[in-house]
């Protein structure tokens, strides 16, 4: 029944967004359909002349008809008239009519191949059954989906598909969520006539993430189309012909795409499965928790599948505005990092330099005592890149109560542009990027910084031949782009209209500029951003109806931190700190930290900063807590706890709240809702979950900048895509990926 629940939860997604895997499981299985031998279906005529009542569109989808009635047409599906926009296929028309057509090769986000023939339906006046996925619906078409002809056609196709498909469902990881299994139950015959030997195919090595059992492949070519069209790595192909046909790379080659894991989801059978998840669990034992990903600033929607206290796997959820239905490999496979190198107990470093586990009471008492010995301005709080808004609020309130204003979030640079929300968000929105026709990427490499944003850009480039100009160190972007230069001079040239790319920008209708958050760390960031604004003004990038000036953030915590005002200067704060409170901050440079500073590390992983810590307070990871995150486009989302916390760990904000009480500066909130009330007074947008609060354009109110841009070229901000934070650094799978996939 798990799949029904899943289908219901999915039911508010739009038609274009439905995931076939989900659809396959919410199909109506009529008991009469598969009765008897393959011939029987054809022999029994539909008995009752009464039409069944009309159905709702599949998955509860909404169909948006074009405003102009000329662009819509009417077809009849099983006798019911449905209105659909022009250009829909027969299959889509059937979906609107609430009839789910079985399919293998068709995928709404990939090009149409029409090679599995599972989607055959009967169309009146057509001599043969037609493949509905590849047939455009024509006005007045009479489509029949449950006639003997259609049923027999499906049974026939099914019989052919099962001919060479091994009967290894009991040892197949796809078992229980396999399209072939489900559809042969629903649409196949109960017997086959094939008595020959089945074929077998050599397995391919696609790398540490995707396991292949190629004998199971049914040649739907979804993976080939995904790799070519979405991932942009043309490595997979269909080799050979006839029964010798197989999917492969011909010359052995690993799949070096940051999106390769998605082929696991789109493969309708168990040919491509997850290597780390192989033989670990069956999908019906898993509890799915719908939450979001925090390994980058995109906030991809995911489902964390857990069994007992263990996260077993991560799969994507559909969110048209953010990740569509893909996720990056980092998001999908970082989960084993949640089980390794975790901090279980509060610990204090003894005089011998070793940590000793203590009780929470003792740990907090020690911290509070030290806290009272330092001067207020020597207290510094640093939030890490994975922090949620609640804990950052608590940290800020606490540090402020202790009399210091030195509280910051790592990655935001010395002087983050926190005054206007539009200065640090992706104002176009991730989905909005699809409307753009020219992209100017400044100091950002979206492919490693935010793989899902990169997938959008790639989609746009592929669909509309949008032009991409890129300023930064040489990068491997998987779409056509023009490398304009490596440093700020190029930007200045564009701003002054001296660069050839200006003509491209000039002729653009919806130009988009994406500046990387790596620029925040630069000395000349004010000058850079004002140059970018000049460019924006010059080429009409920001208009009342279009805001194409974007910043692409790097970390999950960044946007919320800027909203909440964690904006102290890191270098100065660290230099003067005698009491440093690191809340999961591992990537901040501690070189300048005074020797005698007391460092409290509150976090879930024994990562870099632990080496310098004096006290460790264990906290929960994103999979274990409820937290608010704001993604790079300003959309607020919640994580939902999927598994219990490890050991004696507690939620970040609760630890700070407890500490504040021990330290005698009690924070006025005791529950999550109270913290959120407090947040709503600082940044009300963080309360409106799953919404994007639009920001108003008001670049005019900025003071003039006197800084000069320096000539230092832009740097690569993320060296290793697979290891960017405490969780991914602890992950074995990610370590394997960096070892095998990143080596040149």
């Amino acid at each position, binding site marked *: 029944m798990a799949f029904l629940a899943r289908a219901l939860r999915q039911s508010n997604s739009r038609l274009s967004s439905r995931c076939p895997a989900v659809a396959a499981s919410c199909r109506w299985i009529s008991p009469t359909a598969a009765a008897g031998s393959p011939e029987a279906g054809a022999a029994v005529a539909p008995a009752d002349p009464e039409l069944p009542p009309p159905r709702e569109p599949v998955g509860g989808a909404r169909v948006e008809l074009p405003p102009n009635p000329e662009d819509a047409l009417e077809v009849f599906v099983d006798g019911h008239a449905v209105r659909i926009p022009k250009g829909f296929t027969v299959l889509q028309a059937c979906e609107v009519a609430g009839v789910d057509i079985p399919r293998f090769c068709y995928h709404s986000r990939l090009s149409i191949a029409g090679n599995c023939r599972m989607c055959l339906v009967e169309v009146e006046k057509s001599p043969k059954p037609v493949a509905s996925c590849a047939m455009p619906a024509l006005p007045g078409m009479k489509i029949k989906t449950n006639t003997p002809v259609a049923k027999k056609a499906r049974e026939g196709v099914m019989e052919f598909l099962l001919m060479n498909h091994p009967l290894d469902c009991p040892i197949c990881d796809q078992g229980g969520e396999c399209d072939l299994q489900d559809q042969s139950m629903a649409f196949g015959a109960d017997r086959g006539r094939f*008595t*020959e*030997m089945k074929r077998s195919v*050599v397995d*391919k090595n696609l790398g540490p993430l995707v396991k292949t059992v190629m004998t199971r492949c049914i040649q739907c070519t979804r993976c080939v189309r995904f790799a070519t069209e979405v991932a942009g790595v*043309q*490595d*997979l*192909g*269909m*080799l*050979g*012909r*006839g*029964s*010798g*046909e*197989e999917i*492969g*790379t*011909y*010359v*052995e080659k690993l799949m070096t795409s940051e999106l390769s894991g998605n082929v696991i989801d789109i493969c309708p059978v168990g040919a491509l499965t997850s290597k780390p998840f192989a033989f670990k669990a069956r999908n019906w034992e898993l509890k799915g928790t719908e939450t979001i990903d925090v390994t980058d600033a995109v906030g991809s929607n995911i489902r964390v599948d857990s069994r007992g206290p263990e996260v077993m796997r991560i799969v994507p959820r559909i969110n048209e505005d953010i990740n569509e239905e893909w996720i990056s490999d980092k998001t999908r496979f970082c989960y084993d990092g949640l089980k390794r190198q975790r901090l279980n107990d509060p610990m204090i470093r003894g005089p011998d330099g070793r940590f000793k586990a203590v009780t929470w009471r003792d740990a907090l008492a020690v911290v509070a005592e030290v806290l009272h010995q330092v001067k207020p301005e020597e207290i510094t709080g640093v939030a890490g890149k994975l922090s949620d808004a609640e804990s950052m609020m608590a940290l800020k309130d606490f540090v402020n109560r202790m009399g210091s204003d030195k509280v910051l979030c790592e990655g935001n640079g010395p002087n983050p542009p926190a005054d206007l929300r539009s200065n640090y968000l992706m104002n176009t929105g991730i989905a909005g990027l699809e409307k753009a026709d020219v992209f100017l990427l400044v100091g950002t490499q979206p492919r490693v910084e935010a793989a899902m944003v990169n997938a959008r850009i790639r989609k746009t480039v592929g669909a509309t031949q949008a032009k991409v100009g890129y300023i930064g160190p040489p990068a491997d972007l998987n779409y056509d782009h023009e490398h304009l230069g490596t440093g700020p001079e190029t930007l200045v040239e564009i701003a002054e209209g001296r660069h050839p790319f200006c003509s491209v920008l000039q002729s653009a209708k919806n130009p988009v500029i994406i500046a990387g958050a790596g620029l925040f760390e630069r000395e000349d960031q004010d000058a850079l951003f004002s140059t970018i604004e000049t460019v924006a003004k010059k080429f009409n990038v920001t208009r009342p109806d279009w805001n194409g000036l974007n910043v692409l953030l790097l970390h999950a915590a960044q946007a919320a931190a800027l909203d909440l005002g964690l904006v102290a200067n890191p270098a100065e704060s660290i230099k003067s700190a005698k009491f440093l409170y690191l809340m999961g901050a591992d990537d901040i440079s501690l070189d300048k930290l005074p020797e005698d500073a007391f460092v409290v590390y509150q976090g879930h992983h024994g990562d870099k900063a632990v080496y310098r810590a004096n006290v460790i307070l264990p906290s929960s990871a994103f999979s274990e807590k409820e937290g608010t995150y704001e993604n790079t486009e300003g959309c607020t989302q919640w994580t939902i706890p999927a598994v219990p916390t490890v050991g004696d760990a507690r939620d970040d904000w609760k630890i700070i709240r407890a500490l504040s009480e021990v330290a005698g500066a009690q924070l006025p909130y005791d529950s999550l809702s109270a913290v959120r009330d407090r947040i709503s007074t600082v940044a009300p947008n963080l309360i409106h979950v799953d919404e994007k609060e639009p920001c108003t354009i008001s670049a005019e109110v900025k003071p003039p900048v006197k800084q000069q841009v320096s000539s230092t070229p832009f740097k690569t901000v993320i060296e290793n895509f697979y290891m960017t934070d405490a969780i991914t650094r602890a992950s074995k799978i990610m370590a394997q990926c960096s070892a095998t996939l990143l080596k040149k």
Partner: protein
Amino acid sequence: MLPPAARLAARRLLGLASSSASEAAARRLAPSPIAASSYAAAARGSVSSSRPFSTALNYHIDSPENKPDMKWEFSEANMKKVKEILSHYPSNYKQSGIIPLLDLAQQQHGGWVPVAAMDAIAKIVEVAPIRVYEVATFYTMFNRTKVGKYHLLVCGTTPCMIRGSREIEETLLEHLGVKRNEVTSDGLFSVGEMECMGCCVNAPMIAVADYSKGSEGYTYNYYEDLTPKRVVEIVEMLRRGEIPPRGTQHPERKNCGPAGGNTTLHGEPKPPPCRDLDAC
């Protein structure tokens, strides 16, 4: 008594067991993977020639003469031909030229296309290499492993089979002392099989692809109306460097006409009665 289907399945299983055993044996004998695969293919073919097994592997295995990092280029003369070929297609559909280019590469490279050549073609037509691999593996007339200077292709489709193509193939293999898809030790001959080449009137037939003179002197000739004796003669002529007369080998047949001349339809055809206007 087993039901018929089960009996059949049991028989198949037996067949499979013996074929995989012989494959394993072949593998033990053959040192290089390429040879092993062709042994295996031959072994399979001999167990049950009615089962459709493709004779070539659909993936690449590195060997000293076939490695992706080897350098491969069209010769200067052929580069001109490449330009010529590409000029047939619109410049944004260069990939349409993959098949003729693969053919040219095959002629230049002594009858087979190494991966390096496919990569070179991919570069010329500006597509990802896998798109060329797909084409090259799809068409069985592109050889992806070494063949002899004279590649003899025996037609195995029904009409030729009825007229004795199996004996032709057996004779060839025996005469040359090779297995199917194997090259003789002097590198001169290899025997392959292919499907109907549209020459069924004069079945059985073989096609001989002559790669001995590079792409300039490349020929592809049919030898029809064969007998086991005649096919050996043809092979020997080729070995001596002579060019056997192509086409039918039947002494009394001209092209594909009836042997011994026409026996019927000698006179002028009579007009149909309805056209005989005088009779009306």
